Structures are given as structure tokens and as C-alpha cells.
């Protein structure tokens, strides 16, 4: 998936090639995982992912999920239009290391802040890294709402997760 990501970054691969690679990877993972013991399939960390409330765009979110899964993370994909409480509940129940939030609309970007506030309220903000992304989201906005990182592309999401989750588990 790293190579697929590289080709996507340099505009040799496009959305179809990414989605097909992701599908092949999921099929391969299923086969591999069914043959390995639990200890052997230990993931690098758990990442909860979803498109925030009010927003139904999911193509980018799916690519991010695929790239993270391909890099060895366990993905809990909550789909689209996900309310803050659902993010919090899933993170708590699964002791997730990170949460990746996607928003494609100016009007749903504030929902990212609501998720962070809900994490603070639940007392688990310091236990989970918050990554944000999606077409209208910027580095500046990420800082402003107190997220831990922003990624412009699905490939950036992998690098970001690696550095954030490693620094958290180190």
C-alpha cells in the first residue's frame, strides 16, 4: 500500500486504482489473518475513523482507512454522519490510540471541534490522538481546534499516524 500511496501522490494512480488496491489488500489480509495466531497479528494500534455529523462524503475517508489498514493499523470505521458521542463511545470501548475525522463541508468542519470537546468532557482527550482532514480543512484550522495533526492526503495520514501513535506508545 505504501507503493500505491506513492503512485497516488505523484498522480500516476487515481481513485479507481487506490480503491482496487485497497480491496485486494483487504482480501489478502483476511486470508493472512485467518492463518496467524492472535499474537502474530498484533496491530500497530487502533484507529477509529469516520466522517463527522451532517457530512456524508466518504470517498476520501475510505482511502484514508484503506491506507492505514494497509500500514498495519486496526481500523474501526464508523461510516458517515457520525455524532460525537459515537466517536467517544467507540474510542472508550476499544481503547483506540487515535481517531481520524473527515469533513468535506465548511458547515461540518465545526463538528470536528465538537468531537474534541466531547473527548475532553469524557476525560479521555489525553489518551487519544486526533487527526483531521478533508478538502476544506487546513493545518491552521487543525491547530485552532486543538487537533494533534492534519493531513492533506491519505498518504499523509499514514505518516501522521505513525509519528503520533509511536510517540504516544513510546
Amino acid at each position, binding site marked *: 500500500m505504501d507503493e500505491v500511496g506513492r503512485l497516488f501522490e505523484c*498522480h500516476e494512480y*487515481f*481513485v*479507481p486504482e487506490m*480503491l*482496487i488496491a485497497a*480491496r485486494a489488500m483487504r482480501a489478502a489480509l483476511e486470508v493472512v489473518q485467518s492463518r496467524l495466531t492472535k499474537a502474530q497479528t498484533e496491530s500497530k494500534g487502533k484507529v477509529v475513523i469516520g466522517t463527522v455529523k*451532517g457530512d*456524508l462524503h466518504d*470517498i*476520501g475517508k*475510505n482511502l484514508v482507512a484503506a491506507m492505514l489498514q494497509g500500514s498495519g493499523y486496526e481500523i474501526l470505521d464508523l461510516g458517515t*454522519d457520525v455524532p460525537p458521542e459515537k466517536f467517544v463511545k467507540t474510542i472508550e470501548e476499544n481503547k483506540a490510540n487515535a481517531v481520524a475525522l473527515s469533513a468535506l463541508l*465548511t*458547515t461540518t468542519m465545526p463538528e470536528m471541534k465538537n468531537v474534541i470537546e466531547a473527548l475532553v468532557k469524557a476525560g479521555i482527550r489525553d489518551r487519544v490522538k486526533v487527526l483531521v482532514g478533508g*478538502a*476544506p480543512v487546513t493545518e491552521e484550522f487543525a491547530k485552532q481546534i486543538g487537533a494533534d495533526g492534519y493531513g*492533506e*492526503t491519505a498518504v499523509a495520514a499514514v505518516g501522521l499516524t505513525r509519528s503520533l501513535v509511536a510517540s504516544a506508545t513510546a
Partner: protein
Amino acid sequence: MAEHLGLDNLFFVIRAPVWAEKISGKDGRLFYGDGKIQTEKDLSLMQFPDADDDAFYSEARAFLRHKGNYPVLFVTRIGILSTMMSMGMENFCVALYENRGLVEAVLDRYCDWTAKVAKRVCGLGFDVFISTDDMAFNTTTFFSRAVFWDLVLPRYRRVRENITLPWIVHSDGNIAPFVDDLVDLGVIGLHPNEKGAIDIRAMKQRYGKRLSLLGNVDLNLLGMATPEEVDREVRELIRDVGPGGGYVVTSGNSLAGYLLPENVRAMAAAVRKYGNYPLAFA
């Protein structure tokens, strides 16, 4: 309404149906979920309204009778976006590689229908023909130029024969990789030159003589900034893209419901203030 917002044109939309699950999102916006055309068997679902029936155009004719002094843009989709939505993005992507015939069959049905509609509406009294098939996102196009050449262009050429009005193409995102082909196809205008995805100043340099450019006024600005900031942005756009003509000031996508009315009015006011030729910038 048009007067209130300071608009100088109207538009009328006829689009083919999309065969996908419909989900109504926040603020009553419509959103398409899973596509219903998954296999050849589903092609029979694609029953279009009769484009040869005069009655199908009666609303359009009524609209044109009441247009007053406004020019009217006709808006439709040629069909590649409808194809992606009716098949569902993931299924469309897989089929591109594993069942190209199905993609072609769906797109053919759309293009054949649009070609008929184009032929009829171009004679009704509209001023401009606009097709709105999104083919790109922020960094690049959805699919490669090779797919665009093999799949999309030959079919668009067929529809092109029936478009006798000036043709403007709308696509969100960074559509730049396809623009040479669109110009060759006879497209004379490009909308919305989305800010952050397209550098409209670079487009002006490259295509200024061959293509009208429309849009680029940032939705974030229209939705969140002050009227003064909108005024400044429009002024700079007219200063940089206006010389020589061929620039139409408008939002970098649509006048979405969440924009601030005072900012939309500020955009229109700025056009009147800075947009008179000869331009005041020397």
C-alpha cells in the same frame, strides 16, 4: 430574487435521473448513497423520461417566456458523474478494470439521452449550455487522462454535435489535466475554478485567449468572511483575471444555502464597482 442578490442571469436545469439510494441530509440537502446499477441486470432500471416528447420541455418554454431581460443558462449533466453515482463510486472503480462494458453501457445510455435533450433545448431560446459533471477533487482528477480519453471523450464528442449554443463545463476540483481536451472538444468556458484546487491566474495565462473563466470566489470567504474581505477578493480577481475580458465573477462552486447573503451582495456590488471596462487598474 435575482435582483435582490444582484445576479445578471438566470438558469434552468434539466437532468437525467440518478439511480441511487437517496438520503436526505442536513438542511434538506439531497445526497446519493449506494448506486443501484451494479450489474448488467440492473440496466433495465434506467428508464429515462421521453426526450422526444414536446411536453417534456413545456416548463422550460414557460420559464423562457418569463425571463424578462435576463439571459438564461441551460444546465444539465452529460453523464459521467451520473454514471459514477448510479453505479456507486467503488463499484464504478472496480468495473473500470473488471467490467468496462458495464460502465460503457451506463454512460452510453446517459449520453444518448443528453444528446437528444441538447438538440431540443438548444433551439428553445436559451443563451448558454452548461454541463455539470464533477470529475475532480482538490489535488487532481478522479480518474486518469487515459480513462478520460478512452471512456469519456468519444461519448462527449457525440453529444457535442448537438450542442449549438456556447458550451461551458463545470467541474469541481482540480480539472486542469483535462482542460486541453475540453478546449479541443469546443468548450468555450470553464467553471467554477475552485479556489485551492485551481490557480485561476495560471489558467488565465495558459488559456486566456481560448477559454472564458468563471468563478473562483471562495465559498469559505462567502460563507464566513466579512463583506469588506469579499470586496477585496473580487477586486483582486478582476485586476488579475479581468484584463482582456473573458472572466465571469461568480462563486467558486454554487450559491450554497449556508452562504451569507450580505457577502453575496458584496460580491455583486464589487463587480459593478470594479468590473467596468476599461478596467481601472493600470
